[in-house]
């Protein structure tokens, strides 16, 4: 009879509707006694089972849940189910990468430099790190990339990281300023290996299902997923004859208007070989310096992740960071401090590597068929 406890949702003749921990709603055929909505109750055993409800906490008004409260939000149908299944996806992710030989690493969220990427705005914080110290500027990471690469330069094996990242000014049905990212790297590896990782990881999360339904459309997960080249799609889907000759801004506009909305609807798509100007941390493709070893993964209309064959040349990386800052200056936006510790690590020799950052919340949306990112987080 231990399961008779919870929150009273409603009281009717001959019974009580209880919200049990974990979001299970149960109707108990019994005398409600003094219980009223909002009360926390436990069943008291007697001859023949539970005979009475004891009110262990009395709700002050009996009007439950209060509009706008956590309880009201999480009382929506499926919310606890989604949170439970999200936790399972996270556990399955860790199991998958550990079994594949990856080491889980933790990296700082609060850093002296959060990178220079032109269109990412890190959150600025000020803090005194010790008693009596002056307040210093720190940043919340937009991705654990720099620290993971420092680990690779220091001899790390294949590594993965699961954690929170922060991006100022990003909010929408698929965006939150604070979100959960899973990022992984393989040293001495090309970015094709990361595509294979994606296929196997998502298959593991889908629990053997070859097809899933997302937002009413069937998504076929059967590998290998299509590899589509950026410039090919600008030609085929945006109708451009010589997309290579456009400036990056015009390429991006054509991509947003005509290509991105078409990606990943029937099968997940890898969009590969991005213009070099759109890949500040990727290395040029061997044999074609106009494009970078960068891919993005799209599935169900969601942009899930971004991957690079990593740039390991310290001098070239410094030049690109400075170019980012020049572009920021021109646009009237704040320049970002260069991450000297990261650049120093590259100068020590980082093995040729590939890695990817994936928005875990969006993967959860995809596999749990959620319409918004807010449905797959508690707060």
């Amino acid at each position: 009879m231990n399961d008779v406890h919870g929150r009273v949702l409603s009281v009717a003749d001959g019974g009580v509707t209880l919200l049990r921990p974990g979001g299970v709603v149960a109707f108990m055929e019994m005398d409600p006694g003094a219980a009223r909505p909002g009360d926390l109750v436990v069943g008291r055993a007697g001859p023949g089972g539970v005979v009475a409800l004891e009110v262990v906490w009395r709700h002050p008004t009996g009007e439950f849940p209060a509009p706008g409260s956590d309880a009201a939000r999480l009382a929506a149908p499926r919310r606890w189910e989604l949170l439970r299944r999200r936790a399972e996806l996270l556990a399955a992710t860790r199991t998958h990468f550990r079994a594949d030989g990856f080491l889980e690493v933790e990296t700082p969220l609060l850093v002296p430099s959060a990178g220079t990427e032109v269109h990412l705005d890190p959150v600025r914080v000020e803090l005194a790190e010790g008693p009596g110290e002056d307040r210093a500027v720190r940043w919340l990471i937009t991705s654990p990339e720099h620290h993971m690469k420092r680990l690779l330069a220091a001899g790390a094996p294949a590594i993965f990281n699961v954690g929170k990242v922060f991006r100022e000014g990003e909010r929408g049905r698929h965006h939150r300023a604070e979100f959960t990212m899973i990022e992984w790297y393989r040293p001495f590896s090309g970015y094709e290996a990361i595509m294979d990782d994606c296929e196997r990881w998502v298959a593991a999360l889908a629990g053997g299902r070859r097809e899933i339904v997302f937002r009413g459309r069937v998504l076929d997960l059967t590998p290998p997923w299509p590899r589509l080249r950026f410039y090919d799609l600008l030609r085929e889907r945006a109708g451009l004859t010589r997309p290579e000759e456009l400036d990056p801004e015009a390429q991006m506009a054509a991509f947003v208007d005509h290509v991105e909305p078409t990606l990943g609807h029937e099968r997940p798509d890898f969009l590969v070989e991005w213009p070099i100007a759109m890949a500040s941390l990727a290395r040029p493709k061997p044999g074609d310096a106009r494009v970078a070893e960068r891919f993005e993964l799209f599935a169900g209309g969601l942009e899930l992740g971004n991957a690079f064959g990593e740039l390991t040349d310290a001098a070239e990386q410094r030049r690109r960071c400075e170019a980012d800052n020049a572009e920021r200056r021109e646009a009237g936006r704040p320049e970002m401090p260069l991450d000297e510790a990261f650049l120093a690590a590259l100068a020590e020799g980082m093995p040729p590597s590939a890695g990817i950052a994936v928005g875990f919340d969006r993967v959860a949306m995809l596999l749990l068929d959620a319409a918004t990112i807010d449905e797959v987080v508690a707060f």
Partner: protein
Amino acid sequence: MYQTSDIKKGLKFKMDGAPWNVVEFLFVKPGKGTAFTRTKLKNLLTGQVIERNFRTGETFEPVDIENRNVTYMYNDGEHYYFMDSESFEQHPVGETALGDSVNWLQDNMPCDILFYEGRPISIDLPNYVELEITYCEPAVKGDTANNAMKSATVSTGATVLVPLFVENGTTIKIDTRTGEYCGRVSK
């Protein structure tokens, strides 16, 4: 001026000389590039729906558009007259702004009229009206199973397709959005 961050469902603004209403929107930032807001917009004059992407930083002109609760009064052969429920002012509205709605207007019917720069441009009627059939061919008995329909004239003068079994003088329920028969009303 509106910013892209003001975009939400139902936001109305002026663009290319026309009033638009946001039907759908989505914040996107693909490829770690500039942020965009994808929108589906409805032209409030023509009803045309278009897709348009706005870059963060673009601005929009507010539009002089107002919804007013009114009651239908009468028509004088040229205009249809509605009384404003708040100001009690009378608004004459031409047939073009009313479209198919003229088929269902009844005295004292509560409606919403949308005004663009002071001009009435569209009307919202209640979703259903009940009207009496003033003329139709006699009912065909025993033919309730198939979907055959016949034409009937209702008290406003409009014609509606009704099932064969419906009789002259019956009051029927009509969906004003589609002009379709929804059933008989028992009086």
